[in-house]
């Protein structure tokens, strides 16, 4: 329908006599193209020496010369060691056990080194606590090779010598000692026996030393509550494997809650065994990783969570308290009470509310239950920061009482909510020294920036949990002129001892008893069997405390419960600040792997954003929409907390966000000393007032739209049951697997038959030799993403940057899809889809699919790691015109990059969309200024895997370099390969046991056993691709008690 309507762009256009408008209408370009300037001068043109023929000659010559020059091979030099270290054989990897303890992440790890370079972090399976490396720890090896690292000590931005720094600091310390003015040490949590001892000695030597421990993201409330109850400033330890019922009030214990490290125990309890698995109920505001994994998730604002917790305590004690919570929450609490009373000591309650009362109540409940999963006797020391001490220090600084401030592992100018006060105080400190790996907001303001070692260059020790000691050993010599804090302390104490000797001494006297230092160093972990041995505390607690609630500090608890039940919101929306799985507290913000790592829930990379519920978004007119290039756009919002305002915070509408609450991740928005690409997101720390992660906030829409780099745009499964299969524990236990794990049917000769029985192709005999399979258990997978980063490290997966991710050109070989369900469950989705009849109408598919696209207010969530499925009948292989992708007998779908010509037919034909195309040359290309374009960043590259070039397809190889190595090692030793020897990067990284890899032709192997499981299914089985990766049906324990 043609319309005669006149469209106009501005008012001037409506004036018919405007000559400019007319001119603009006629011209394609607003300005005249200056053709005359270079062609108008005839004289000049004819007098030039270069005519057209000459030009062609030059072109011809240079082309010929270039192609001739290309025929000459380059001369490559090979430079051997002068004296080759005994342990280093070029081409063979060495592994060292060490520990990361950067104040936020604590984990015992193995470090793989090649030719002396650390290139990968792996789990230390010998470690009983925190032996699993999460995504940040996996990625930490790249931070070692960060080209923005401080390469030597600096004074006021200018490089100085360590000797100069030492002299001035020592002189200052001595004057301060004489004057009695305060010397403040502001440090991260070390949990280190040796450092504690060293600082004590330092205090002894210099007198008025004030050691303040500061955690950027505080657990002060939990520490205080624990200290009040048990006398030790520590955190209770939990073993979720032992719990049958897990109730969490805003505790994201699968991520960073209280130092993290709880996911592997949790996962073991989640795999149904003998018809039993744990039940997990989560009351929370933001959609967290834990909430996504919960059997029942109850969205509540933090204020409501407090009331709910109080109600739970009261109901467990047979009493009741006031306070208003929604009806569904009341019901949920009743359900939880029933479950807990049924399981008693097999139940556990945790909370992430930064509220001493809430923490105290939780401790009381667990003690009252005598929870098996709760351990207060051997607590964890991974957080020790004290808000009180810190505030006192800032006051002292502002009052000019602090003579010297020495900082290590902290960046208060970035992480402190009251950074302005700190800055003012810093101006009154006579001497300030910051130990830091990078130039940052704090080093900028202090007198000295002392270049600190990366943990892979340092010595150290930690006591993660009482009696569980770990050692930190260097895996490479300092790359730069750096020094660790402890060595500097020793220097300033005029000791010529190295910190290594110091630790060794401490351990031999205090830790090891009669045991061998070398063994402890080799293992990386040491469990003390002495007086502070870790026994079965649980039973002791259970027997000491009856279930009558008659605990020792009953008075305190009941007042705490009262306070909780009277919780009121501050008027506005309730903001919950949280840390992202990829970024943590932000100290690794310069790490491109972690920036590109998509958030498990939102699947957004390179950003933080405020998460808003759909209801609130509609009310505030905040929108999310898809742009034409496939990217996601979101409104900006202005957040104000107590007069502190963040303009321009991108908004992401988060299914499952409790209405009335919003969420925002800390750790983003670092600016100083960062590459421009890494300066992403907004800094939320200014809103973290009083170190409380819950704030009352006002939010209003701001102008403009934000461009997100989102890896997965489609949010729901839309009833495609072939992708994620799930069932409930009840059905799983009572019905035949044919009911809940249906094999898809296809039509053959007009007969419905099972898809697995139909085959277009002749099958290849794979019964001889190895046949690799991978098992992924959707019950054990928490979506933590450690495997994603591990895969990037192992396989030299390039980082492509925000712009490219937005264009769906991310290169991750392994992705973890996250699906919401528009019904209460995925089953509901399936049922709804199956019941579509006709196009329109009530049950019509037109409207029905539209409805399925919208995730529910409180959706079910499922995570599904997807990598190349290594189909035995691979659709990609048949369409490759140059046979660049082919199948091996061992089951791996192989990719010969040098053969690939980049038609991308294979990517088109892949039903799982796991093939990645190199749109650009990502290495040696300054357009992609991440790590592959500088010599330092390239040190992390795995020498056994090709670095791909532009124009080729790449994908998961099922770590063929690792399987081949395992085979070769066995051949060399002349032995048979045992089960468990075959590993991929992801299966090794998964401490939860969700990814199991192995040889199915070895009938004794774990993976062969898993393949026979009733829960086993293949992704999109009806396509008939016969994948070598299989999944296990997700079972939810959501039958109401």
């Amino acid at each position, binding site marked *: 329908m043609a319309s005669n309507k006149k469209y106009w762009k501005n008012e001037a256009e409506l004036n018919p006599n405007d000559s400019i408008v007319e001119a603009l209408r006629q011209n394609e370009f607003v300005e005249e193209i200056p053709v005359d300037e270079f062609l108008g001068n005839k004289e000049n043109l004819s007098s030039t020496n270069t005519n057209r023929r000459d030009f062609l000659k030059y072109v011809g010559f240079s082309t010929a010369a270039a192609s001739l020059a290309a025929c000459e091979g380059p001369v490559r*030099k*090979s430079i051997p060691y*002068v004296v080759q270290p005994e342990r280093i054989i070029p081409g*063979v990897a060495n592994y060292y056990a060490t520990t990361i303890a950067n104040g936020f992440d604590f984990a015992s790890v193995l470090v793989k080194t090649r030719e002396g370079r650390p290139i990968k972090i792996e789990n230390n399976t010998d470690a009983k606590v925190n032996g699993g490396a999460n995504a940040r720890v996996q990625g930490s090896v790249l931070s070692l090779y960060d080209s923005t690292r401080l390469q030597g000590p600096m004074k006021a931005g200018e490089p100085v010598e360590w000797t100069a720094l030492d002299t001035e600091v020592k002189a200052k310390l001595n004057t301060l000692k004489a004057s009695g003015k305060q010397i403040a040490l502001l440090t991260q949590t070390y949990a280190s026996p040796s450092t504690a001892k060293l600082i004590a000695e330092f205090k002894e030597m210099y007198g008025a030393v004030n050691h303040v421990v500061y955690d950027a993201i505080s657990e002060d409330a939990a520490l205080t509550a624990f200290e009040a109850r048990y006398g030790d400033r520590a955190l209770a330890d939990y073993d979720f494997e032992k719990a049958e019922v897990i109730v969490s009030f805003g505790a994201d214990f699968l991520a960073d809650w209280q130092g993290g490290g709880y996911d592997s125990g949790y996962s073991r309890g989640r795999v149904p065994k003998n018809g039993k698995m744990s039940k997990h109920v989560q009351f929370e505001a933001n959609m967290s990783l834990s909430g996504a994994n919960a059997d029942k998730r109850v969205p509540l604002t933090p204020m409501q969570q407090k009331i709910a917790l109080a109600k739970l305590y009261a109901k467990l004690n047979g009493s009741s308290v006031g306070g208003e919570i929604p009806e569904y929450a009341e019901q949920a609490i009743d359900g939880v009470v029933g479950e807990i009373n049924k399981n008693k000591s097999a139940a556990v309650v945790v909370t992430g509310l930064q509220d001493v009362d809430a923490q105290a109540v939780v401790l009381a409940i667990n003690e009252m239950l005598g929870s098996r999963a709760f351990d207060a006797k051997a607590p964890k020391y991974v957080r020790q920061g004290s808000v009180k001490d810190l505030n006192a220090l800032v006051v002292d600084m502002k009052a000019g009482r602090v003579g010297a401030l020495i900082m290590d592992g902290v960046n208060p100018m970035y992480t402190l909510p009251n950074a302005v006060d700190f800055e003012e105080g810093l101006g009154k400190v006579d001497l300030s020294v910051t130990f830091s790996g990078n130039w940052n907001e704090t080093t900028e303001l202090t007198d000295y920036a002392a270049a600190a070692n990366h943990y892979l260059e340092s010595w150290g020790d930690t006591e993660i949990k009482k009696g569980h000691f770990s050692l930190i050993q260097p895996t490479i010599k300092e790359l730069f002129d750096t020094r660790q804090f402890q060595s500097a302390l020793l220097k300033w104490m005029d000791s010529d001892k190295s910190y290594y000797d110091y630790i060794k001494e401490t351990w031999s006297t205090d830790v090891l008893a009669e045991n061998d230092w070398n063994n402890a160093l080799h293992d990386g972990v040491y469990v003390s069997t002495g007086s502070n041995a870790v026994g079965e505390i649980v039973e002791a607690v259970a027997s000491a405390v009856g279930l009558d609630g008659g605990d020792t500090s009953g008075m305190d608890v009941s007042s705490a419960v009262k306070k909780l039940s009277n919780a009121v919101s501050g008027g506005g929306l309730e903001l919950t600040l949280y840390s992202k799985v990829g970024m943590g507290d932000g100290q690794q913000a310069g790490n491109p792997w972690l920036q590109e790592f998509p958030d498990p829930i939102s699947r957004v990379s390179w950003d933080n954003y405020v998460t808003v519920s759909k209801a609130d978004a509609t009310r505030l007119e905040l929108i999310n929409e898809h742009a034409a290039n496939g990217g996601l756009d979101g409104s900006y919002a202005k957040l104000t907390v107590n007069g502190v305002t963040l303009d321009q915070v991108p908004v992401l509408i988060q299914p499952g966000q409790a209405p009335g609450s919003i969420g925002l991740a800390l750790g983003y928005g670092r600016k100083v000393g960062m590459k421009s690409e890494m300066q992403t997101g907004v800094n939320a720390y200014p809103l973290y007032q009083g170190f409380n992660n819950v704030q009352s906030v006002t939010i209003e829409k701001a102008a403009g739209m934000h461009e997100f780099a989102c890896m997965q745009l489609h949010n729901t499964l839309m009833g495609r049951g072939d992708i994620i299969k799930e069932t409930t524990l009840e059905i799983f236990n009572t019905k035949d697997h044919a009911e809940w794990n249906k094999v898809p049917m296809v039509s053959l000769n007009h007969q419905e038959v099972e898809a697995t029985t139909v085959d277009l192709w002749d099958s290849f005999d794979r019964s001889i030799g190895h046949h690799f399979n991978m098992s992924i258990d959707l019950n054990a997978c928490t979506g933590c993403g450690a495997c994603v980063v591990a895969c990037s490290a192992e396989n030299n997966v390039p980082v492509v940057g925000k712009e490219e991710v937005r264009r769906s050109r991310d290169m991750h070989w392994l992705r973890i899809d996250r699906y919401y369900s528009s019904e209460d469950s995925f089953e509901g989705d399936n049922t709804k889809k199956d019941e579509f009849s006709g196009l329109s109408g009530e049950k019509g598919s037109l409207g029905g699919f539209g409805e399925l696209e919208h995730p529910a207010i409180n959706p079910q969530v499922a995570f599904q790691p997807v990598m190349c499925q290594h189909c035995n009948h691979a659709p990609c292989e048949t369409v490759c015109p140059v046979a660049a992708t082919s199948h*091996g007998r061992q089951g791996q779908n192989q990719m010969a990059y040098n053969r690939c010509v980049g038609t991308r037919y294979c990517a088109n034909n892949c039903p799982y969309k796991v093939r990645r195309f190199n749109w650009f040359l990502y290495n040696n290309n300054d357009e992609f200024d991440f790590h592959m374009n500088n010599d330092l960043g390239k040190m992390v590259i795995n020498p*056994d895997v*090709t670095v791909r070039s532009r124009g080729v397809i790449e994908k998961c*190889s099922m770590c063929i370099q690792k399987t081949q190595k395992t085979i*070769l090692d066995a051949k060399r030793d002349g032995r*048979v390969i045992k089960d468990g020897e075959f590993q991929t990067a992801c299966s090794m990284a998964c401490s939860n046991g969700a990814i199991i890899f192995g040889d199915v032709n070895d009938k004794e192997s774990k993976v062969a056993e898993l393949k026979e499981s009733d829960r086993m299914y293949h992704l999109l089985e009806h396509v008939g691709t016969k994948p070598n990766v299989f999944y296990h049906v997700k079972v939810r324990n959501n039958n109401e008690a």
Partner: protein
Amino acid sequence: MKKVTYRNQFSRVLGVSLVVFLLFSVSIFAQDGAVASGDPAKGKALFNQNCAACHALNRKMTGPALANVESRLNADEGLDREWIYAWVKNSPGVIKSGDDYANKVFSEYNQAPMTPFPTLSNDDIDNILAYTAAPPPEPVVASAAVAEGGGSGSSSGISNEMILGALVIILGLLVMMLVLVQGTLKRIAVANGLDLEKAKSERGLPLWKAFAQNQFLVLVTVVFLLLSGAYFVYGWMMQVGVDQGYEPIQEIHYSHKVHAGDNKIDCKYCHSSARVSKTSGIPSLNVCMNCHKSIYEYKGNPEGPSQEDLANGYTNEFYTGEIKKLYKAVGWDEDNQSYTGESKPVEWVRIHNLPDLVYFNHSQHVSVAGIECQTCHGPVEEMEIMSQFAPLTMGWCINCHRETNVKVEDNEYYAKIHEELSKKYGVEELTAAQMGGLECGKCHY
């Protein structure tokens, strides 16, 4: 063949002269024998076995020079043979006993006591002393041999020229015969009355014209030329990047011929990582110094450098100069027998360059398959300058994988798979290809 005969002659002459020389020299030793009362020949063997690691005759090494050690000790220190017996058998004991000279030597040589040799008998020590008392005779032999060798070389050259001359004469004779035959034929033709000129003119069209007129022939020729042209262009293109025979000049002239050939050092002694790693590894300089601490000069084979070596400038002095380069690189101070700590790694030009897209593992081939290094690297032990022997192309790899049987003996890893696969393929022995050695992903990842 020429070289071999030449060598044989050469060594024969050398042999004779050596015998003559030895006969002569033995008589000299016999005279000394009255003083030393030992067998210098046995002594030499013992010396090489026990002492040479730390001592040389005319040179300070880890320990002092030992030429005429007995007479020197006797003259300078007044020490007798009994002292030497005691020292050799238990030097730390002598030092402990407070002996002046023993302590002096001990402190002079970095406080490193000499390894005691309690197993050596007095007779053995006599023999060694006899050897140290005899002046080293080698240089005389070498110069004599060079003179003799030069003579014999020129005589063999004449015989070659003679063969060549004979061939030229035969060729000349044949040409002459041809001319004669043609003359005879012409005469017969004339005699028979044939007009030769007329026959020539009747031939009609010249050959090239006839060819040009025959379109079929032209077409066939063009097609042939195009095809053969394409063949050669393809051949030329395929050799781009193939560096077979690549023989770069290295910073230090390291001769594999001297090490692996003449001295029969096992390849894997220096390239030890070939056994366990994907790279064979260029030996680090400390590996060189294992031997070159005591081998400080090149003495050549006893026959002296060959004509060919001399022509290339590979004299003993040349090789010794290369050893000095090693010392400089590793920072070895010969005079003080210690490392200076100033080292400069050697930048070798890499000869075998596989592209990054190929994964090749030495240990798979060397340790598991037991393939000789020479299979791929050629007769390294004959290479004065190392060069690339194999083309290192994918076709070359694949061919070998097709033809080579997998070495499965005594390897438990292969037991099951070999049994099953050989049954499947109906063969006794499996090739690497049948084992899956042709799959892309085995080498490209």
